[in-house]
């Protein structure tokens, strides 16, 4: 009886461990954040000041590199009215190198200044995006906490001898002026005034662990 229970528990542990290892990422809620949604490929957390933290993964595609997807991300966010104000290389807890992109944003039809930080990690299997967003008044606080957040993030999906995971960073990117606003919106998105520009970008990090 006890033997069977022990075997079952062991099996459950092994399965749980395997599942955990297969998940595209893992992250512990940083201090001040609570997890409100947790799916295998999408996690959302919030802080008291309504700043949101989200981690989302997408399957990578053949040929998709860090530089390619970073450029794609910046270009498309730029079309939506986001203004890139900072770019630099960062590392996750398990040493994967990503690209941190800081944006300013004013949602269409409002005059609310927002900050938006997207950190992109591209591995052979996945594209993982860590997002932080909230009112611009909190931007300085959370821009300073990005490294802390990434310090609790593990990104998976690298293969042995992968060229994707050790790929080069994108060149300095910039958002083009926003495309014409969606038809007849109350107010077109403005590029927004720079809120708290992060330090000059494109600074390389140390070699990945």
């Amino acid at each position, binding site marked *: 009886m006890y033997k069977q229970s022990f075997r079952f528990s062991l099996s459950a542990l092994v399965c749980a461990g395997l599942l955990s290892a297969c998940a595209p990422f893992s992250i512990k809620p940083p201090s001040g954040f609570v997890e*409100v949604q947790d799916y295998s490929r999408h996690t*959302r957390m*919030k802080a008291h000041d*309504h*700043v*949101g*933290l*989200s981690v*989302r993964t*997408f399957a990578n*595609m053949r040929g998709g590199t860090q530089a390619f997807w970073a450029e*794609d*991300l910046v270009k*498309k*966010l730029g*079309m*939506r009215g*986001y203004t890139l104000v900072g770019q630099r290389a960062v590392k996750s807890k398990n040493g994967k190198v990503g690209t941190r992109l800081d944006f300013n*944003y004013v*949602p*269409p*039809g409002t005059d609310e200044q*927002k900050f*938006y930080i*997207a950190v992109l990690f591209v591995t052979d299997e996945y*594209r993982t*995006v860590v*997002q*932080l*967003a*909230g009112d611009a008044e909190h931007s300085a606080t959370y821009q300073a906490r990005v490294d802390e957040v990434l310090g609790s993030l593990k990104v998976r999906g690298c293969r042995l001898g992968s060229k994707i995971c050790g790929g080069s960073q994108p060149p300095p990117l910039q958002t083009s002026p926003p*495309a014409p606003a*969606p*038809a*007849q*919106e*109350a107010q077109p998105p403005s590029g927004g005034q720079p809120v708290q520009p992060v330090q000059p970008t494109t600074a390389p990090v140390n070699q990945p662990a």
Partner: protein
Amino acid sequence: MASKESRAPSPQMADAAAGPGYGGGGMAERGDYMAMEESDYDAVADEDDMVEAEFAEAPAEPAPPPTPARELERTEPTALGNSAGKQKEPAVQTQPDDKPQKFTRQIIYTADMTISVFNQEDAMQKAEVIATQAGGYVQSMSTGVYVLRIPAAELRRVMEDLGGLGVVENRNLQSRDVTEEFFDLKTRIEVLEGTHAQLLALLKKAKSVKEALAVREALDKVTLELEQAKGRLRVLQSLIGMSTLTVRIEERGPHTSYPDSDDPFPWVDSLGVEATEWK
């Protein structure tokens, strides 16, 4: 004398007039004709004439918002023409009998549109205000869907105003020309009224109960048919005067904030401030 339409607060009543309970010119409403004296018949006849008089006077009533009767005065299809709002004397009803009648187009407009907005609740409130200010009203409402009745002359402007609430995803306008049916009904009503008057005259001249009963039977059939035709005409006038506009208001998230159907990698659609921030 106030017209029937002017007494009615909204065209809904005109719609209701065509319901199964309408057309009450027959026996059930008028009571037992067998027991009626000739003077009663006259009274019934006078009442019928009164209804007719009210009906004929209706187009001249200037009460805004446009009632179905007023829409008879339009000379052009209203939803698309700039002259739609111009009111003229009813061409058909004011023509002397010896002149050829002027047939104006009678068109029912039905429209629907889908708008995507960032704040659905706010947009729905604004949509209701736009409809009301144009002289229309909300016929029905469910989550994200309004069925509005809008004066035909205001339909185009209202659709433009509603489009300003967000991004118009699609917009349809259909028209149905009911000119033939409209004038058929009017002709039929005229003929039936003539027959009705003749039967009333015959009824007065009846010399026996048997004759009176025979005329009365014919009179009841004609009355019923006449009232049905009038009811149908009122429905048509309501539909012509008040266009039906179905508005679907969808909420836009970051994934729809920038339409780009050609994007082979739409992953960025699910990213952004709206997808991340908590309120």
